């Protein structure tokens, strides 16, 4: 029971955390692009776009941060035996993530959230760039840790414990780099869809004077979407051929040569991801080619508004392939998930599972309500606090 509940809790909390992560990771890169255009061209349109999408970024960033703290704590509360066995190897990327990435992004989002209307153009660009560097480095380090669990290199297994031998090998683990690239591209695709959908909403229902600005945003999103969705199959196929050499059982599940239970789920999730990935290429090509039509067609705009869940589902499917595909291992080939759990009374885990479930349901409603109402408020200028900015 302890194992089942702990598995459920981790799957639930990480999936919930990952609602917010890809949007922030991708959106901040788009914001940097807008902010750079504003800095170099001085076009005020881009400042307004950057401010607008920053509000949406900041809402989701805050939810990402707080649900991320729950992840860190759980290594100790629910996965104590894993932590003891893996502390030597898993701990250092986590420390590096905290001190290199978290500090950078958190220090500068504070400025972005509470002072961005009162700083110079140059400082604005510096602040958003620091946040972008922070979020990217944060992804790098946590994926380094995950990459080790998928493909353990640079350490030796003593039978009880992983011992670090070569830290450079852990950092340059090809598994992690494949994953990072694939993950970042998918985050950019998702953010492209989000920007396109939000712009569509404004073209449909927003203020007339904002039209031109959101057509620009949609154009950027469409091109970003096109590049990233064309690149992602290349990253995916080289990732897969690498996995072929190191995780044969995962590949067997993907190809369907091993079936039953979770294995079938992996196969279906993989098929789902690849199919939608292909659909994304078609959609983005269509958008770029018929962009003029998009700006006037209400039907197209309405369709784009409802496409946003697709990239989220695709990303979830991708992670299901990655994580279910390595079962029953927590460290591939060495340690099973069942060996990693904590020695905690089951009643306490019930407490956390139930309370998290209720709490996160509230958070989801909050995030949705906050994001939606911010989207609909449109472009606003600071007005001495009256607008509650």
């Amino acid at each position, binding site marked *: 029971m302890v194992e089942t509940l702990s598995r459920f809790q981790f799957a639930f909390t990480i999936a919930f955390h990952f609602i917010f992560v890809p949007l922030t990771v991708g959106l901040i890169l788009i914001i940097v692009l807008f902010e750079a255009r504003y800095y170099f061209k001085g076009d005020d349109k881009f400042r307004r776009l950057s401010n607008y999408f920053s509000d949406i970024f*900041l*809402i989701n960033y*805050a939810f990402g*941060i*707080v*649900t991320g*703290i729950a992840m*860190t*704590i759980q*290594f*100790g*509360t629910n996965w*104590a035996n894993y*932590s*003891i066995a*893996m*502390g*030597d*190897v*898993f*701990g*250092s990327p*986590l*420390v*590096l*993530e*905290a*001190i*290199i990435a*978290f*500090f*950078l992004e*958190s*220090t500068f*989002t*504070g*400025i972005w*959230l*509470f*002072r961005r209307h009162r700083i110079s153009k140059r400082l604005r660009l510096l602040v958003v760039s620091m946040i972008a560097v922070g979020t990217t480095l944060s992804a790098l380090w946590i994926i380094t840790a995950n990459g080790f669990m998928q493909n353990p290199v640079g350490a030796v297994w003593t039978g009880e414990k992983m*011992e*670090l*031998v070569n*830290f450079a090998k852990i950092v340059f683990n090809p598994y992690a780099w494949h994953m990072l690239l694939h993950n970042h591209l998918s985050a950019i695709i998702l953010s492209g869809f989000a920007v396109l959908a939000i712009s569509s909403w404004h073209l449909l229902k927003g203020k007339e004077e904002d039209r031109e600005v959101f057509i620009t945003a949609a154009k950027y999103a469409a091109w970003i979407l096109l590049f990233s969705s064309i690149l992602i199959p290349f990253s995916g196929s080289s990732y897969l051929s690498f996995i072929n050499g190191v995780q044969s059982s995962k590949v067997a599940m993907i190809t369907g040569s091993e079936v039953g239970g979770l294995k079938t789920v992996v196969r279906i999730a993989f098929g789902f991801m690849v199919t939608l990935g292909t659909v994304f290429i078609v959609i983005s090509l269509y958008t770029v080619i018929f962009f003029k039509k998009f700006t006037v067609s209400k039907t197209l705009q309405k369709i784009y508004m409802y496409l946003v869940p697709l990239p989220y589902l695709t990303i979830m499917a991708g992670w299901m392939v990655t994580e279910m595909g390595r079962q029953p291992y927590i460290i591939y080939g060495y340690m099973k998930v069942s060996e990693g759990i*904590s020695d*905690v009374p089951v009643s*306490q885990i019930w*407490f*956390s599972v139930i*309370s998290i479930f209720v*709490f996160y349901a509230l*958070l989801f409603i*909050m995030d949705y309500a*906050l994001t939606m*109402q911010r989207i609909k408020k449109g472009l606003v200028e600071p007005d*001495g*606090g*009256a607008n*509650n*900015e």
Partner: protein
Amino acid sequence: MNDTLGIILYFVIGLSWTVYVVQEMFITGSSALNLSVAKDDGERKQIQVASGLHFDGIEVWLVGSIALLFASFPLAFAEIFTHLYIPFFLLVYALIGRGLSIEFIYKMESKRWIRSMSIIWAVSSIAIMLILGIYLTNIFYGFPIGADGMEKGFGSIFNVTGISGGLLFVLTSLVAGAAWIKLSTSGELGDKAMAFVKKIGIIYTIPIMLLLVFMGFNNTEASIFIGELFTASPALFALPALTVIFAIHTTYYGYRGKAASTFRFALMTLAFFLITGFVGMYPYMLPSYIDTQYGITLFDAMALKNSLLVIVIAVGIFFPIIIFYQSWKYVRFTKKVNYNDE
């Protein structure tokens, strides 16, 4: 070599906790006061804008302290987080509540939303300090560790010393928070905050709580005052003595209404409290008050040389950088927050 790295990281974790707590205390303290001293949303927003700027960058010191414990002393991390399973989840909920309320209180226009967010903001801020105070005080006080591990459930942390420690953290934070409001906002808000902590007597409780905790420490087998370092060099007793002196100064300057000095001494009180604790319990990560031999020392818990080396190098490079840009941020944004600033 191995031991040296472990000892360095033991004190790095102590430092990281200290840097975290001395900053978090004025953020949570000012947040908790929002209900009592802000007469309207304009004033509440002054507190939000002053504290919101820094809270996220400060909270990372907590995540950093936990990650450092995980990486450097995995055994201690696993042991304590499993034992305090429920308190840590409560801490997470408090952190979530505070993080979201401080950022989103004014992101919706409904009066009910603003009202509930301001309550969540105050309550979660107090909860953070209470839980951290109880946790850290118990770390210094010791745990019921016997030959076969923990002999009691997590309820044992709610002993008199632990609770006094929790209250010490909360009350000192309120005083530091009041002084922070005075220092970082314009208008009459700051004076009201300083008057509030004086009028209801919070400033007088700090030395009393501190003495209760110190007396509690002395009541156990694991007393930090008979620990390795205090026994070896009695000069270290200057640390607890200074803590008491700073606590009395906090009261004195709070009484005189001098915000800058109150602020400084309130921060120093908790800083020296933590330094005293970490020095006193050395070399234990988790002392046992049943019998000291069952305590978990840093040498029992530490990771192996290669891992410790990576962490020491990373900390050596990045802590100075972090301290540099976070200090820059304090200096760059010293301007007081006005009524109706965004």
